[in-house]
C-alpha cells in the first residue's frame, strides 16, 4: 500500500488536525515545560535578546538599558546565542513547522506579493515587538502562560488584545487589502 493511502500517515501527517487536538497537545507540552524547566512557554522575550545580539554585532551597546541591566540578563547576553535555551526553542518551532509541512507534502515558498504586504509586515512586526516588551510578552508568554499561571495580567492582556485585534481587522480591510 502506498504511503499516501496509509491511514496513520493521513491521520498524523497529511490531514490538518482538529483545533481541539491542538489545544490538548499544546496544553500537555505547556505543562511539561513548566514541570521540566521551571517556567512556562514564552516566545517573544527571546526575540528581544536576538535584537540585542544583532545590535551588538553592529557596534551597539545595551548594557545601560534598564531592560538588560539585571545580573541575569547580562549573564544571558554574555553567554551568547549558542547557550541561550529560548533560542533553541524558537528555532525548533520554525523547524517543527517546516518538518510538518514537508511530511504533508505541502511546503511551498510564498514570495512577497505586493508592497502592501511589505508595509503590513513591517508595521505589524514593529507593533508586536514594542507591544510585547511593554506588555510583558506575546500571545504565548503574556496571554497563554500568563492566564495559566493565574496572573490577573493575563486576563487584562486578553481584553486589550481582543480590542487591538478588532482595530487591526478594521485597518487591515481598509488599508492592506
Amino acid at each position, binding site marked *: 500500500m502506498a504511503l499516501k493511502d496509509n491511514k496513520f500517515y493521513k491521520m498524523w501527517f497529511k490531514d490538518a488536525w482538529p483545533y481541539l487536538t491542538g489545544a490538548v497537545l499544546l496544553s500537555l507540552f505547556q505543562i511539561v515545560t513548566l514541570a521540566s524547566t521551571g517556567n512556562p512557554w514564552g516566545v517573544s522575550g527571546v526575540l528581544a535578546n536576538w535584537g540585542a545580539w544583532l545590535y551588538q554585532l553592529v557596534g551597539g551597546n545595551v548594557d545601560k538599558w*534598564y531592560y538588560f541591566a539585571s545580573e541575569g540578563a547580562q549573564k544571558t547576553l554574555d553567554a551568547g546565542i549558542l547557550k541561550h535555551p529560548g533560542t533553541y526553542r524558537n528555532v525548533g518551532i520554525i523547524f517543527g*513547522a517546516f518538518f510538518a509541512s514537508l511530511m504533508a507534502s505541502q511546503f511551498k515558498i510564498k514570495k512577497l506579493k505586493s508592497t502592501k*504586504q511589505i508595509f503590513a509586515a513591517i508595521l505589524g512586526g514593529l507593533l508586536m515587538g514594542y507591544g510585547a516588551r511593554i506588555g510583558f510578552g506575546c500571545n504565548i508568554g503574556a496571554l*497563554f502562560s500568563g492566564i495559566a499561571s493565574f496572573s490577573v495580567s493575563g486576563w487584562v492582556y486578553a481584553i486589550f488584545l481582543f480590542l487591538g485585534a478588532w482595530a487591526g481587522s478594521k485597518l487591515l480591510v481598509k488599508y492592506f487589502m
Partner: protein
Amino acid sequence: MSEAETSGAIKRSSRSSTRTRRKKKNQVPVGIITGIILAGLAVIISLIDQNLGLFWVTGIIFGFILQKARFCFTASMRDPLLTGSTSVTRAVLIAFAITSIGFWAIKYGAHINGLPIPGQSYVVPVSLATAIGAFMFGIGMVIAGGCASGTLMRVGEGFHMQVLSLLFFIIGSLWGAHDFGWWKLNVISNGKAIFMPDVFGWGGAIVVQLLIIVLLFIAADKWEHRKNEN
C-alpha cells in the same frame, strides 16, 4: 475529515476542471531526511547540554503541533468579530482550562511542600502598559498575519512575508527594550502583580479561573450561533 478531497459534486466549466495541472512532487522523502537531521541534532545538542536539548525538542514539538492543528492565537481573537467564527477561540479556551489545571497542580504541589513556586516570573504587574502593549500587539498580529509563535511557524512554512515581520518584530522588541526603563519608572511601577491564589485562596483560584473560562466558552458558542441565524 473535512479536508478530505472531494470531487465532482459541483459543476465546473470544462476550462477550469480539465486545466493542466503541474505534477505534484512528493516532499515526504525530504521530510523524512529533515526529521532524521532534527533528531540527530537533538542527540548532539543534548550530549553537549541536556537543558538546551530539552528546549530544542519541545520547540520542534510546539512547531509541529501549531502547524498540524493550524492553531492560531491571532485567529482566536480576530475571527469572532471579523467572520463570526469562534471555533479557534473555543479551542484556545479549552487549552487555557487544561493548562490551568496542570499549572495549578504543579504550583500547589510546590506550595504545600514548602518549595518555591515555579514560573512566578510570569505573574507580572497589571498597569496601563499591559493595556497599551496588548492593544499594540493585537493590531500588529492581525496586520502581519500572525503573532510571535504564528510568525515562527509561518517562517517554517515558507512565507517570505513572515520572515520580514519576524525581522521587524526583533527590531520592535529592541526598541521596546530600549524604552522599557521609562515605562517601568512611569507606568509599570504604579501597577501590582496579582496572583489569583493570593486573592481567592488555592481552591478559589482554580474555581474562579475555570468559571471565567466556561462562561467565555458559552458566550463564544452563543456568538457563533447568533451569527448563523442571521
